[in-house]
């Protein structure tokens, strides 16, 4: 069977792309094509599309489109914010003919990206919504058709509702949710201003205290929700929530708050650099995608809303109009909102980096690790690309045993010093000795338990495991399984995010991720810095 090529050669992004398939889960995406090659040059009848990761659920529709129009779509999946960076830098011009993101709103705020795009054709829509467990809806006494953001905010503030949401710095659904929440909770009557954001900060902070789950992608959020069972609700696109109900029988009640939503309109967007053949292909494809037949397939298969009035939305989609909350019109507001979320509003993180510094790391591997860590300590880095204010960061280098526990807290007033200190610790890492993965992980869990007792446990807590080889020393996998099973429940909810690197054993690391509810990131043959950055979305 022919596979759909989808892997970027661009080293900096390959780590993101390999793990970027999320989607609503209809099985269109994962598994096929991981060994493919991206089409390097434009080809007649082929559109190379840089696409939002959740669009993998459109593959059946795109196959039908190819049959009908002869236009083949070669997608490469990426997060919205990463895609905007690629477009702005001009990198996308060399590798793609079109981009297809949930929304171009964020893109348009970046003039250097906005000037590189041409025609935009909205293909389908989905509003950001709240999916709530039915028992929580009953407990709160809500009429799902009449709930307001203010009511949701109040339930969260009173401790009667907890939820999970994707990271606004990584994912368009998270960012749209943040815009919607800030608009609704600030009482802003038109597009958000910096003053609105300041004004809403206390209410937003109370609201984000109820966020118990964060994720760099919609797909993992859904998995974590199904696993944890401790969260009452998810904030995501209506289509993602309804797909979750369809595929995982989650039975979420999907609420579109009556006081407004932010809606993704999925514009298929031609890059200004595209050639004549690609323009022709684009026109044929968009015409097809807006035809009644394709619109019907889209709404039925992906549970998004059609953009053609003559096609009725799938019956599972609730009727009734909603006010559209305006998206910020300036980059200052948009980035300011993101910055506030990261550094002031959200619950702070507590992260332990369990870092393999065994002998095999010596040389380029160790220097790549140092570079990756240093990359997260830049004070002028974009939101989501550095350690956040209030974050507790602990480096735990290990070989045969843990070599040291290097703890730091990034306090707002002493941000620079803390980041400098983390960089200095990273820089001082030396490689020698064996590889005791499981013993070191146990040490990390014990340390986190101790920190929770000393400094409180109300934080997004997680462990990153970076190793370049197999376990050669200390405890075994079985020992670790038993250790983990015996942990108290709050500690068991701490996920491990292993990074596949060098000669590490995929099966071994996948097991650790599965056991602890984490996720495996791949930095083999690609950028370790990229993996470190992507993991930020989960921390």
């Amino acid at each position, binding site marked *: 069977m022919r596979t759909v090529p989808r892997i970027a050669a661009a080293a900096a992004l390959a780590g993101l792309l390999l793990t970027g398939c999320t989607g609503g889960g209809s099985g269109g995406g994962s598994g096929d094509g991981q060994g493919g090659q991206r089409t390097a040059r434009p080809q007649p009848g082929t559109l190379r599309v840089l696409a939002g990761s959740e669009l993998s659920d459109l593959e059946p529709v795109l196959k039908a489109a190819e049959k009908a129009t002869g236009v083949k779509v070669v997608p490469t999946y990426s997060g919205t914010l990463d895609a905007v960076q690629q477009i702005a830098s001009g990198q996308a011009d060399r590798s793609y003919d079109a981009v297809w993101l949930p929304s*171009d709103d964020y893109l348009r705020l970046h003039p250097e990206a906005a000037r590189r795009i041409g025609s*935009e054709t909205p293909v389908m829509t989905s509003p950001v919504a709240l999916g709530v467990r039915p028992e929580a809806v009953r407990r709160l006494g809500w009429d799902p058709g009449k709930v307001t953001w203010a009511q949701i905010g109040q339930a969260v503030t009173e401790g009667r509702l907890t939820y999970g949401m994707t990271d606004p710095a990584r994912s368009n659904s998270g960012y749209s949710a943040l815009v919607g929440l800030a608009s609704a909770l600030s009482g802003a009557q038109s*597009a958000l201003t910096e003053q609105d954001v300041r004004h809403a900060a206390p209410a937003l902070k109370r609201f984000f205290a109820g966020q118990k789950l964060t994720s760099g992608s919609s797909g993992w959020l859904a998995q974590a929700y199904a696993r944890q069972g401790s969260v009452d609700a998810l904030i995501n696109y209506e289509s993602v929530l309804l797909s979750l109900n369809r595929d995982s029988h989650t039975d979420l009640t999907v609420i579109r708050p009556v006081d407004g939503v932010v809606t993704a309109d999925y514009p298929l967007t031609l890059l200004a650099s595209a050639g004549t053949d690609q323009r022709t292909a684009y026109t044929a494809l968009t015409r097809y995608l807006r035809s009644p037949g394709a619109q019907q397939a889209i709404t039925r298969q992906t549970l998004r809303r059609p953009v*053609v*009035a*003559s096609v009725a939305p799938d019956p599972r989609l609730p009727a009734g109009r909603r006010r559209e909350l305006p998206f910020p*019109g*300036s980059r200052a507001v948009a980035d300011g909102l993101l910055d506030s979320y990261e550094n002031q509003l959200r619950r702070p993180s507590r992260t332990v980096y369990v870092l393999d510094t065994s002998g095999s790391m010596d040389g380029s591997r160790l220097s790549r690790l140092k570079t990756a860590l240093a990359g997260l300590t830049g004070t002028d880095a974009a939101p989501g690309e550095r350690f956040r204010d209030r974050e507790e960061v602990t480096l735990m280098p290990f070989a045969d045993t843990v070599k040291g526990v290097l703890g730091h807290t990034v306090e707002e007033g002493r941000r620079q010093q803390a980041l400098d200190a983390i960089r200095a610790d990273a820089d001082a890492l030396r490689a020698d000795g064996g590889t005791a993965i499981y013993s070191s992980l146990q040490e990390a869990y014990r340390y986190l338990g101790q920190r929770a007792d000393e400094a409180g446990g109300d934080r997004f807590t997680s462990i990153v495991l970076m190793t370049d080889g197999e376990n050669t020393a200390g405890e075994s996998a079985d020992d670790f399984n038993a250790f983990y099973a015996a942990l108290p429940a709050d500690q068991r909810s701490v996920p491990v995010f292993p990074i596949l690197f060098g000669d590490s054993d995929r099966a071994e690391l996948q097991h650790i991720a599965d056991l602890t509810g984490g996720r495996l990131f791949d930095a083999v043959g690609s950028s370790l810095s990229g993996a470190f950055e992507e993991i930020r979305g989960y921390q």
Partner: protein
Amino acid sequence: MALAVLLAGGIMAAVLVDRDKGQSTATTTVRGVIGSEKADFFADPDVVRAFADHGLTVRTETSGSWAMDSLDTSGYDFAFPSSSAPADALRSRSKDPGGPLRPFYSPLVVAAHRDAAEVLAANGLATLQSGQPGILRMDAYLKAMQKNTTWQQLRGSAAHSELTGTLFVTSTDPLSSNSGALYLAAASYVANGGAVVADSHGVAATAPLLHKLIAVQGAQQSSSDAPFRDFLSGVGNPLVLVYESQVASLLVRHQAGELGDLVLLYPDTTVSSDHTLVPFTGNGRRVGELLRDDPRLRQLAVRYGFRPQGDTKEFNAAAAPYTAYLNQKLTGVRQAPVPTSAVMHEIARRARDEK
């Protein structure tokens, strides 16, 4: 008949057209840069055929109309922006002595959902008569904008939960899109006391209100198609600025079903998109003349909802079944002139500005 031997952008083209059979034995390729609103028209196979019958193959590329005056137009036979002001700016480059041609036009109108239109009418911001399109009272609308009026403050809005937040019309980005710029042209004319803004004094006097019209919208799209598509799919603001042609083309092609509960509100002071062709070469002029005079091309322009200049019979015949949507004779609608390109750029820049 031998048409001409021409030097067009350094390319020599010899053309022979056999008029008796209405078929070309060879065609001349004519290149033009056009506003994106006309891309579908030029791509229509019937339009292609109509030009071919006159020995022409028209190749077009799209550009924002207001960006054309900064475009390198060498190699083009014509430019076809969607407004007369950028055309005037382009004219200085034209070696063609005959001046620009205006084959068709389309007024700017506001697409409203039925509930929103009725609430506006109940509050004196619009007039509605059953079975007819409405009129948006620009003066009252701009006053409401000035006062930051919200839907909640309007009588009758409570029954419609989606009608909350500040009342405003969604437009496109005035810096990059013609319809967005023309929205400000119409509003500036009203705000300037019924006179076209012609100098820095007028720009300064109208800037605060125009800035508000844009700032409340937040992010704006850069082409008029996208917000209209969003509107038709029930997403976004209930009031969206569109070209009449966008609605008329759906009607004329029997796609009224796409319009849902749309009500068109014609602003009592509006601006028309005067599709103005600036010829750079004789072949460019030929394209403009055919669009203006050829009966088949005039009819095809109507298919895309445009109003051909001069005789109104083609448009009126096509619009006759749809008088519930279209204001055939533009009764009660005043056409405001558009500021010059330089003034318009300044108006748009100040409206978009952060401060």
